[in-house]
């Protein structure tokens, strides 16, 4: 078990998501920055879908009770094992009693802790990703114990790599959304010339942006939405749906983020700025 001594701001278990239930309104969930998760799992020889811990903004303090191997990725939150600094994309062997803790957020917003074999929490509807009401709890709490598999024999093929942080990009690649054609020239020039800022309304469901573009009065029948769908409210606000986002919505879907740009946005926090680039 991995004991959560202190849980940090918002720590959840995530895999790559819950597929096959969007027809009954269940969001896909899963790691916000899937690229970082896949890379860490690859270094550990895990299935890409192996469950990891998603650590938002501030890190937890965690204690291992069995030997295993771990790999960090995503945001840099000054992680240490027994006060010895460890880097992202470095396979680290840990043993009983070791303490993983985090310090200051250096860049990004969401860090990942991957573990050999993946965390073994209960699968609900085919996924371990925490999302209420599918799972009973929405995040890890102080004192909680998270199961994993003991491992003493793993021989990593590569024990450490330097990988550029994709998330330091300050533009998001977008495709035209289903209602792109509704945009006026003024709205188009607003979208593609302005720099946008992440507002305080940002979480695993959606990111709202601070800047407004020209308002509109288009109404449409409720229709499907996806992670990365950019909705335009009548007031001219842009709302970008993320992994826990609703499966349907009634606002025009003007843009759709590329999968890579969803990962980039997942690493942006309140006040961070970016622009849109049409693919």
């Amino acid at each position: 078990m991995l004991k959560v001594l202190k849980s940090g701001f918002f720590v959840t278990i995530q895999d790559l998501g819950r597929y096959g239930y969007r027809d009954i309104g269940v969001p896909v969930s899963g790691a916000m920055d899937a690229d970082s998760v896949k890379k860490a799992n690859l270094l550990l020889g895990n299935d890409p879908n192996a469950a990891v811990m998603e650590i938002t903004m501030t890190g937890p303090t965690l204690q291992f009770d069995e030997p295993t191997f771990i790999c960090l990725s995503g945001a840099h939150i000054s992680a240490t094992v027994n006060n010895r600094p460890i880097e992202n994309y470095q396979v680290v062997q840990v043993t009983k009693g070791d303490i993983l803790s985090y310090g200051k957020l250096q860049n990004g917003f969401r860090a990942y802790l991957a573990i050999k074999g993946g965390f073994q929490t209960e699968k609900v509807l085919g996924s371990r990703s925490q999302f209420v009401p599918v799972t009973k709890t929405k995040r890890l709490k102080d004192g909680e114990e998270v199961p994993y598999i003991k491992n003493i024999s793993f021989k990593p093929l590569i024990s450490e790599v330097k990988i550029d942080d994709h998330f330091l990009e300050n533009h998001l690649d977008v495709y035209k959304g289903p209602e792109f054609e509704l945009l006026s020239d003024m709205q188009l020039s607003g979208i593609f010339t302005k720099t946008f800022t992440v507002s305080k309304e940002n979480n695993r469901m959606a990111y709202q942006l601070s800047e407004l573009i020209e308002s509109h009065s288009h109404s449409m029948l409720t229709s499907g939405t996806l992670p990365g769908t950019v909705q335009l409210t009548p007031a001219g606000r842009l709302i970008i749906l993320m992994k826990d986002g609703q499966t349907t919505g009634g606002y025009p879907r003007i843009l759709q983020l590329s999968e890579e740009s969803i990962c980039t946005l997942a690493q942006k926090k309140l006040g961070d700025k970016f622009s849109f680039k049409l693919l």
Partner: protein
Amino acid sequence: MKSYPISIKPFGERAVLVEWPSEVKESILADILDFMEAFKALKIPGWEMSVAYNSLTMVYNNDHLDFEETQKMILDCHAGQAKSPSNRVQHLWTIPVCYDQEFGIDIQEVSKTLNLSVEELIQQHTSHQYVVYGIGFLPGFMYLGGLPQSLEIPRRSEPRLQVAKGSVGLAGKQTGIYPQESPGGWNIIGNCPVPLFNPGLKEPCFVKVGDKIQFNKISKAEYDLHKIEAEVGIYKPAKVVLHA
């Protein structure tokens, strides 16, 4: 069965949006459901589909998709579906609702605004069958069509921060049930004791798009009983098979 013109748009790297004429109509929904059945019969792994009113979002979970190829496949499938008769099975569900003041916290106000007595309001709400045009927004939330005009009422001017799970509400042309506790601006007229989403079941949501719903007024005592029965898993709402 009537077949409608469809349009297909790319929707990011792994999805397409198929749209039927922009109307809330049972014959359009039937054409969408027939298409889904014909497409499922092709047995191509990786596709996930969800309906909302006049549109179908088709997500391909396996790999990136080729839009031109997918578009052709969808058009061919839609053109060919009329040839094979539909085997779709649909149900009419009787959903119990307790309209007592304890649950229907806005029922007095709604009855005044609509110029109906509370009894008339309940009678009208329970005498119609509502078509499920989509499930989304929240797990198990049904988009219902067919509300009589006499029950149309604007949303509350200020949404509530918390609406109880199971709350039955009215808003604009819609009526529906909150499957979980959530914020919301609908006018609450009752509560349904049966959970609409249960992740512990193989089929977490018993209602399917295309089914119909009819509400049935129950007493507080029946409500309490159904609530316990539903929690231990022995209560199932009554259903009747409708033919497609």
